[in-house]
């Protein structure tokens, strides 16, 4: 009986990873194609998807390798790009059901990405089970690696229009996750509007031009959540 409920938790994670996988496949393919076109040896691109498992870092990484950037700069850029996951893991740590060993938790944490974080953190359950997170994170991991593999070995046959249309898939998945929460709570709506305002300003106002996308996400998340906790948290609804 106990065994059965464990399997159910893993399975729920696998099921919730389906939309992520739909998004990861084409982007993984695009990564494989790009890396190949830049002359990166295929075993290096495969290794990247296996042990880095971070889309933006891998794209930037192969670009920087191709133009001959120093290794130190590439590692530093990767670190900065992924600092936002520190915030996401911190937020998740408040909800994880700490019933499993640290070893298991450190394994799960390898699979924290923008997308797995979004799906997990918008679950309605108060506590997130480690088994669910494992199913979710590693199904997404599998899709990403499968996509990379397809991109390297049988890419170019996919029509360009379809490939580029699929570039939108992860963004619309985020919309699909966020909008129901916005409908439920005007506080969430306010925080979302504040965040959109900040990230738009940081992207388009010329004086902020020097700030990279990774930092825009970090700054926006911290400032909007702070404003939310300080000024929006107490006022009405829910």
């Amino acid at each position, binding site marked *: 009986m106990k065994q059965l409920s464990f399997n159910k938790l893993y399975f729920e994670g696998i099921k919730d990873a389906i939309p992520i996988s*739909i998004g990861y496949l084409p982007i993984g393919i695009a990564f494989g194609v790009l890396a190949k076109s830049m002359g990166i040896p295929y075993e290096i691109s495969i290794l990247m998807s296996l042990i880095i498992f971070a889309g933006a870092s891998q794209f930037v990484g192969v670009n920087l390798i191709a133009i001959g950037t120093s290794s130190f700069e590439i590692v530093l850029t990767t670190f900065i790009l992924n600092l936002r996951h520190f915030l996401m893991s911190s937020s998740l740590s408040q909800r994880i059901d700490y019933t499993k060993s640290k070893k298991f938790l450190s394994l799960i944490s390898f699979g924290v990405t923008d997308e797995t974080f979004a799906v997990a953190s918008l679950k309605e359950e108060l506590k997130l089970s480690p088994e669910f997170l494992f199913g979710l994170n590693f199904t997404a991991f599998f899709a990403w690696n499968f996509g990379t593999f397809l991109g390297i070995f049988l890419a170019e046959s996919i029509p360009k229009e379809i490939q580029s249309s699929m570039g939108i898939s992860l963004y619309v998945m985020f919309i699909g996750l966020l909008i129901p929460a916005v409908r439920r709570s005007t506080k969430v709506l306010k925080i979302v509007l504040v965040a959109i305002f900040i990230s738009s300003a940081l992207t388009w106002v010329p004086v902020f031009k020097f700030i990279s996308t990774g930092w825009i996400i970090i700054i926006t998340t911290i400032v909007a959540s702070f404003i939310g906790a300080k000024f929006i948290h107490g006022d009405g609804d829910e």
Partner: protein
Amino acid sequence: MSREEMVLLVIFMAIVTYIPRMLPIVLFKDAKLPHFWRAFFSYIPYAALASLIFPGIIYSTGNIYSAVFGGIVSLILAYYRLNVIIVVFGGIIGAYLAQMLI
């Protein structure tokens, strides 16, 4: 860059990617935070998602019009609480159709 250097580089990239993902989950085990910080962390998903969506989405297909159209389609589908998978396919098909018509 030699193959050995690339392998080493990828390993270092993997380490700096893993550390921010792992540290809070392993270290903050059951941390009891004051009310304000609990609220702060509970808002992070929404703030992070909003900044991940916008303005990035409008550059996601290489054509602003098709991206905006796909985004609007998925916004409408999500508003009516349709399953995320339908929202995703709606957005992709919307962007694809707009691309074909332009």
